[in-house]
């Protein structure tokens, strides 16, 4: 992936993954890898920040004799995600209008 991803976009992508279904760190990374080359080390500060900003909350669930930390999106997280999606769409449209020689929709 040659195009850099910034922190805010990564935040939103993580929120979107967790919004589909509660999940845990390793799985989130695997999901993200479909689009961006990230490691678990990249994800850790993202998860911490989203928790600190009260967009994600955690709970522990037993799995094979150990606890696994699951993440769940909060109301605030959902709102932020929706907001971000809208902004992403408009941003994408503007970039496409230039990059793909498309007519701007707005």
């Amino acid at each position, binding site marked *: *992936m*040659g*195009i*850099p*991803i*910034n*922190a*805010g*976009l990564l*935040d*939103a992508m993580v929120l979107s993954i967790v919004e589909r279904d509660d999940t*845990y*760190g*390793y*799985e989130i*990374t695997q999901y993200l890898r479909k689009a*961006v*080359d*990230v*490691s*678990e*080390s*990249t994800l*850790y*500060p993202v*998860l*911490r*920040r989203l928790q*600190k*900003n*009260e*967009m994600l909350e955690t709970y522990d669930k037993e799995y094979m004799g*150990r606890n*696994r*930390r699951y993440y769940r999106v909060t109301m*605030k997280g959902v709102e*932020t995600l929706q*907001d*971000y999606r809208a*902004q*992403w769409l408009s*941003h994408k449209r*503007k*970039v496409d209008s230039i990059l793909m020689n498309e007519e701007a929709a707005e």
Partner: protein
Amino acid sequence: MNRLEFLTRLRSSLEKGGLPAGDIDDALNYYEEVFLDAGFGRENETAESLGSPEDIAREILLDSGIHADGEPGYMMEEAVRPEGFEEKGKESGNGYTYGYGESYRNSSEGSNDSSSTLIKLLLLIITFPIWVPVAAVLFALSVASIAIIFALVVALGAAGVGLIAGGVGSLFAVPPVAVILIGSGMICLGVFGLLAKPAFSKLAPAAVDGVRKTVSKIREILNIGGE
């Protein structure tokens, strides 16, 4: 590098950086889980994909410093600004690296242990004319305050005895005044009784201890200077 080595190095780096114990545990739980989820036989591979524990620790430390009281939602707003889009993200040879925080990294690096000790020593020598009088004044003030407290307690006791003695003396001459005197004396003695014990049992040893410590500190400093 196996899981244990990775986690040990991560912990020691985080501890060295002075991260709160709760945050250290949180990070270690996370990375331990990553190893377990990635699979038992793939520890070396996993460690390699995670990167060096020292780098991870540095990122975590930077992060906890920067975002400790970060305003929620700030990152998201910042992110959608098109002009910041390319500047903030950063791609490195190893794939994705965390985009922002680059400017903070410089400031935290370059603190050298041996040179900072030297600077401290130099400062100590240069400021010698200042800190010696300051230390002397502080010492004198603390001695004086202890002396004042002692004097007050002793004075209370003496006043109590004196008042009662005066009251008894004038008991038959002017009885109401005598009663006032004896009563006041009793109050003084009562307060003295309350204060005397803590004052003498706690303050006295503390004062002696403080003086002894100060003297040994001074001796230490003089010894260092003499060598």
